[in-house]
């Protein structure tokens, strides 16, 4: 329902940041999050809604393996 896509912040100017989505660089509004250059964010409708944890933690199955016995 809420199409959101992860990208990496490559520059910030005030409320706006240039976000790299894997070769497509588009501006997003970062006023809803506290982020710095190099952070990964999840962007919905032109706004970053959350800073993502480190990329290594994105692997769902790895998480499950680490949390299982």
């Amino acid at each position, binding site marked *: 329902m809420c*199409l959101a896509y992860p990208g990496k912040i490559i520059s910030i100017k005030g409320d706006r940041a240039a976000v790299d*989505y*894997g070769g497509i660089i*588009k501006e997003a509004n970062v006023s809803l999050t506290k982020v710095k250059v190099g952070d990964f964010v999840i962007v919905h*409708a032109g706004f970053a809604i959350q800073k993502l944890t480190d990329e290594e933690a994105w692997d769902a199955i790895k998480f499950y393996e680490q949390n299982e016995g």
Partner: protein
Amino acid sequence: MKNPTDLTIDLEDGGGGYKSWLLIRQLRKFLSVKTGWQHLEDDAAVYPLGKDNLVFTTDAFIVDPLFFPGGDIGKIAVCGTINDLAVMGAKPLGLSLSMVIEEGFPRGDLFKIMKSIDQMSRVARVPIVTGDTKVMDKGKLDKIIITTAGIGLAEKIISNAGAQVGDLIITSGDLGEHTVALLSKRFAYKTRIKSDSRPLCQELEAVGKYLHACKDPTRGGLAANIAEIADKSKVKIILEEKHLPYKKETNALSELLGIDIFSFASEGRFIAAVAPRHVKPVIGKLKKFNRRANIIGRVEKGRGVFLRTELGGLRPIEMPRGKLIPRIC
């Protein structure tokens, strides 16, 4: 509930998808004189001249923006028509160039466009031999419309209706890059991807004789153009998702804006049906032009176009519908 807009032409009728295809079919029905011409529903029309065939095509270009990464309206106006001849198996002989220009259009931009046209003409070694220019009142036209027509000669015609059961489907390279470059201004993003617009004459001279059907996936993208081959050849085509060459940027843009990647256009690539015994030499030759030339599917008995997903399931690929619109959900 009545739908009065069926009485008027809408943007979807020109979008390159299902509705466009329907409109063209309707319009063709009005034309009653055919005398001697063949392949009237192909990328170009054919007039047999004994050993050779005269091939004739036309196209109008209304691209927006006019200037984009990797090209401009002039470049695609020349390449587009040259390629429509080339994918029929023809060697282009010459083009006509007609321009309708809005009053107030910057002269500098017009000359820039002419320089691009000349550059492509030189690269492809195809002359612009005749043309026309008109100017319309400001506001009556959106900047400029360019129409090119082209004639060529072909010994053997490659028809869209020629794909055979057992053939393999190939692409001459990465797909969808033209759209990625084109949308960058409209959707305000930066990318290193440039339009793939270029003439296909050299590739098609090298491998044309092996191709049973051939199209350049421009308006409507892979989906619309492969559907046309399947429909005209009366076959079923299955594309393999894991072999479709889309760059990571192309994938990212499709996901980001929520636009179907199979509708992304290419202006310098072709897709074709080839007999299995020829596919290795064909791909070998094409890889010299683009490393990502590849087998992307095959032709089977039946009808329709399908995608074999990475999971092994089969799902239909629909003709693109509607205009390209981004979504939030």
